[in-house]
């Protein structure tokens, strides 16, 4: 499974109710497409969000969001980057 990152931008600050509503709509589709939600980050001003998923490809996440009618900015496949020992002191 690949790590998939999804970015969202909202014109107006998004409320927790709206986020929960998105989650409810998207979850059924994610399940159907075999994708799993891992975690989300919401900016303090509530105008940006980043969500992390595990899925076979980025398209599974895109299709889930499209199918549920939830907008996003972009979706990309990511690798987990760990700093090695030599750079750890920076």
């Amino acid at each position, binding site marked *: 499974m690949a790590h998939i990152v999804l970015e969202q931008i909202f014109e107006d600050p998004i409320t927790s109710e709206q986020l929960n509503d998105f989650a409810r709509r998207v979850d059924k589709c994610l399940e159907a497409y075999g994708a799993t939600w891992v975690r989300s980050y919401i900016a303090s001003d509530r105008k940006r969000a980043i969500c992390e998923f595990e899925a*076979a490809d980025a398209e599974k996440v895109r299709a889930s969001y*499209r*199918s549920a009618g939830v*907008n996003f900015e972009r*979706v*990309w496949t990511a690798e987990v980057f760990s700093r090695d020992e030599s750079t750890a002191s920076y």
Partner: protein
Amino acid sequence: MIEIRLLGELEVQRDGKTVPLPPSKKTRALLAYLVGSGRPQLRDRLCELLWDGPDDPRAELRWSLTKLRPLMDGCLVADRERVEFRGGSVDVVEFRRLINGNQLLAAAEIVRGEFLEGLDLPGCYRFQQWLIAERESLRQTQVKVLAQLIDQLGAGDAALAHARKRAMLDPFSEDAHIALIRILTTLDRNQEALRQYDHCRMLFEQELGRRPSEAVEDARRAVGGSAGRPTPSKAEAYSDEPLIGRRDELDQALAAGDKIVFLTGDPGIGKSRLLTELCRDNGIYGRAFAAEMIRPYGIWIDALAELGGFPTDTTDRARLFDRVVELLKSSGRKRIVLDDLQWLDEASAALLHYVSRALRGTPMQMACAAREGELDANGCASRVISELTREHRVLQIHLEPLTPAETRKLAQHVGASDEADRVVAESAGNPFFAIELARASDTSSTSLDQLLSDRLSQLDPRARELVSWAAAIGRRFDVETLGRATGMAAGEMAAALETLERTAILKASAASSYDFRHDLMRRAAYQKLSGPRKWLVHRQIAQALQAAHDPEGSLAGDIVHHASLGGDPHLAATSAIAAGNRCLRLFAYSEGIAVARQGLQIAETLPDDVRIAIQIELLQIIVLTRTSIKERLLWKPRIEALLEQARTRNMMHESSQGAYLLASLDAEAENFNSAADRVLQSAELIPKRDPVMAIGQIANTGRCLVFIQRDVPRGRLLLEEAEALAAKSGVEHFEIPLGLGYFYAHIGDDAHAIPRLEQAYAMAVRAQDHWREWIATSRLAVMALERGDAAEALRLCQRLAPAAAKMTGGSEGPVTDMLTALAHLISGETADVDRCLQSLRDIDNKGELAYALVFLAERDLRRGDIESARQRAEEALRAAEAVDRRSEAAIARTLLTQITGDRSFLDPAIGARQWDDLTKRAQDKLTEAKHGAHRPRTDLRRPDHVRTAQ
């Protein structure tokens, strides 16, 4: 004080005032039976009588009782076991009491008409049998009473009405005709006496095959010699009815714009007349009929007859509706006019809803009419009207009575200036009544029914005979059928039709077909038929229709109706099979179930072997309707019982048919249940609150399964379930055509896929759902590419680009670019496919990448570029397997087998379920690669006629 009248139409009076009865015919039949049988009835017996089916009969009974109780002032007594009508006054009881007391005149006057007139329920054979037996016994009693009364009264004026009634009730009794001829002769009404003789002779010759006896001839010879040609009555001085008054209403209707004109008002108030006026200006006209015959789309079939006929060769309901719309739009007509919507069938109502939306914004206008109050009793028609009203699409015009001045003008126009005051006073502004009053030669009649009945009595024998047959047909009829049913010679029939047209009873409606000028006239003519004659007439009509050339089975519903009323259960039940199959072909599923249920009831009276065979066929119709699987599962016990009976009798064909039906139901139920996972369980909680949302969720789940190519047959079932629910609730959801379009594309059935996907595209555009707009079009583009139709693929790619541009951050842009590049390639142009492939890799859309690579690898192979083909097929296989795109993986494997000669690529076993998840293209490639080894599809198998209908 409650007073119940059964002799005539069922009527309930409370303290002398008529109480409105529930519109449900079965509820009224229940009341009539409880009152008429005169004793407590077991609830189970009542259920068997009226609700013999898989639904919950006891709940239906309870529902009906709750409707009746408030009307009965405590006369309806019910406990857990029994129901009884107790107390109140009943006319049948009073009738018998008067006869026992030898008060014959009073007894004769109490009878208003046939026992429970119009309450026939041919589909409920137990009730119908009781009704017919009671009717016959009361008719015989009434005939005896009338005969004695005529003897008592002598040959004077007072006896005349009774003698007429007796001859009508007992049409094959010579004594009845002789008595009437003698009385008329005594009263010096020689013309009428001779007409009565003619009528008697014709009846005997046609229906008994012999002439009346010498006794009747003697009565004729006794008629005075002054009989010459009859003078024409006022009725015969008919000319076209003028439109008097209604100017405001007409102006309003003409200025309705794109609103649908909807005329309401009492019977005879002038709705049809105003519609005729609207139709005069380049319109087409259709009318619904009251007779309970299963005729899906009846009103539309009649209306579209003059536009070349109703389309019947379509593949699904959506397509059928579209064809009707195309036909209307291209007709160049200005207006479509539909009358008597209170009798609209469910399929016609759905089409009306569709057409009314599709014609919005076009120059074609719509105008309809329905009887006040009666529309509510027709659930599907009233639902369509209220939905259109909610959408502000309806301009309702309620027709009020004419003013006295207008009524007077109408009377004058019909040539009754001398009687204008009487017409104004008695008609209460009802124009139909006013015209009949003005035309009447006998001014003593005060009710409309009486007027119409008198007018029919004055016709010459042939016209009187013909009009009864025409009324029994129940709707517009063609001369050929009428001729075949009556056996009347062409010349005689032409003369009779001419009389009926001249006297404004019938009107020519289309090429060699006729209709009654008004439905009230049809009803009056039908009421003049006595019980035994009705039976004969319906039976002969059924036989005439059966003999007609009818390859499409369009008359089968009519045959069921006439054969059941004519006491021919075998013909009725076998015709129900033909009618049900026609409903399946026309996607009129509710009607299909209704006619099958009717047939099941009728077949109960047949000998076991015949009954079982017919009932299994009828149950097959129910199983094959694309209605909710849950509703169809309710029929399982019935099928199981029949299967058992068929097995005990060694009926091999019927046994295997029954077993097949059970297996089909089980397979559908299993697939439905396992697909209906948590998503559906939550959706199931919704229907009561919001059916649209429930339909959306079921369709979405189905579409999703087809889309991701997992459990495709289940996805299809869910989509069909959603489609059935949607049709029932009159809603639309774009997931349904989208999902079914994908399904048909999946099984390689482009002919069915394209219209669905185009429909989904159009709906998505309306809803501004760009993604669905895009995926519908992209599937169409892929299909065009696979057909090698580069021009069509490029045209569709041009449609994809703007939709893709409206969505940020997705893969729609790169996929559009790739499809465009592939289209260019197959049209022989160059394209930078490598750049497109890299874009798909960059955005990590492995599924589409695999598709494109497979497409290109196949092309490489055809061009002999083996190395490129191998590389692309390998990458395609990796990408497809990573995202479990089995179809692309399968094709990639066949390519690698071809390229490398290594057959181990074909090793992975594919189970039956996985096989169905492969696209038709992938299945074909695999089959071909395995040397043509045929692998059958395991999707729902249906008989061929149904599969082609989908």
